[in-house]
């Protein structure tokens, strides 16, 4: 037997028999839990099989009961697959959680996460990447002609420079 076997499907009550070697009890629990909002579920067990009695809370004919059996079978497969995936990925899950917990508690990180360069002796005024160097100095061409002053160029302020403000209009003071 592979699929859930329908033993009875009458009077609003469905009885299924499951091969317990194919469907672990935890998968049956999971599937039954999904159905307890719309049906009454009672589980039983023999040496080789698990029996599932499902009584619908609303009236249901035989066709509805057989459809319910199909839904239960699908849910069983889903639960069994989820359980298997969880078991297969158990080591990965534990590794991720342990690394996350270790990082949160400040414990030693794995070697791959450790920065080998010791930057702790740098002062905050140090600028090893030259970030504080002005753009004009960094990209200034040696020996090139001076650039004419314009609205987008900076120039050195001299005596009598009003900072661009000319109250009398036109000439310098």
């Amino acid at each position, binding site marked *: 037997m592979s699929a859930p076997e329908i033993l009875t499907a009458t*009077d*609003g009550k469905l009885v299924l028999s499951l091969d317990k070697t194919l469907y672990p009890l*935890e998968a049956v629990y999971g599937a*039954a839990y999904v159905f307890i909002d719309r049906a009454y*579920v*009672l*589980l*039983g067990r023999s040496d080789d099989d698990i029996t599932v009695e499902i*009584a619908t*809370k609303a009236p249901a004919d035989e066709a509805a009961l057989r459809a319910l059996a199909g839904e239960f079978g699908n849910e069983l497969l889903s639960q069994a697959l989820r359980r298997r995936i969880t078991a297969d990925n158990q080591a990965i899950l534990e590794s991720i959680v342990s690394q996350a917990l270790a990082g949160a508690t400040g414990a030693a990180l794995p070697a791959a996460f450790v920065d080998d360069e010791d930057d702790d002796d740098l002062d905050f005024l140090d600028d090893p990447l030259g970030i504080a160097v002005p753009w004009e100095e960094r990209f200034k061409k040696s020996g090139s002609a001076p650039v004419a002053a314009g609205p987008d160029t900076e120039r050195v302020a001299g005596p009598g420079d009003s900072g661009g403000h000319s109250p009398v209009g036109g000439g310098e003071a």
Partner: protein
Amino acid sequence: MSAAEAAPAATPATRTFDKRVYAIAAIQDALEAYASLAELTVDKGDEAWTVHVTATDEDFTSETLASELANFVLAGTIERKR
């Protein structure tokens, strides 16, 4: 009318809980929870506990209460197994 509503209130309904499937603590919790709604008697066997439910509240049938009690036990068992 569903199967759970078929029996009159005075007729006892019975549910058997296999100890390999159900948690004993979940059965005990259910017995406490439903004590005010029904008269509950328990046969404690080696492999299973059998609960006889006789409704004392006329709003519910024994069969309905027994089925609800079974769902309560199942949910309690699953929560304990997780």
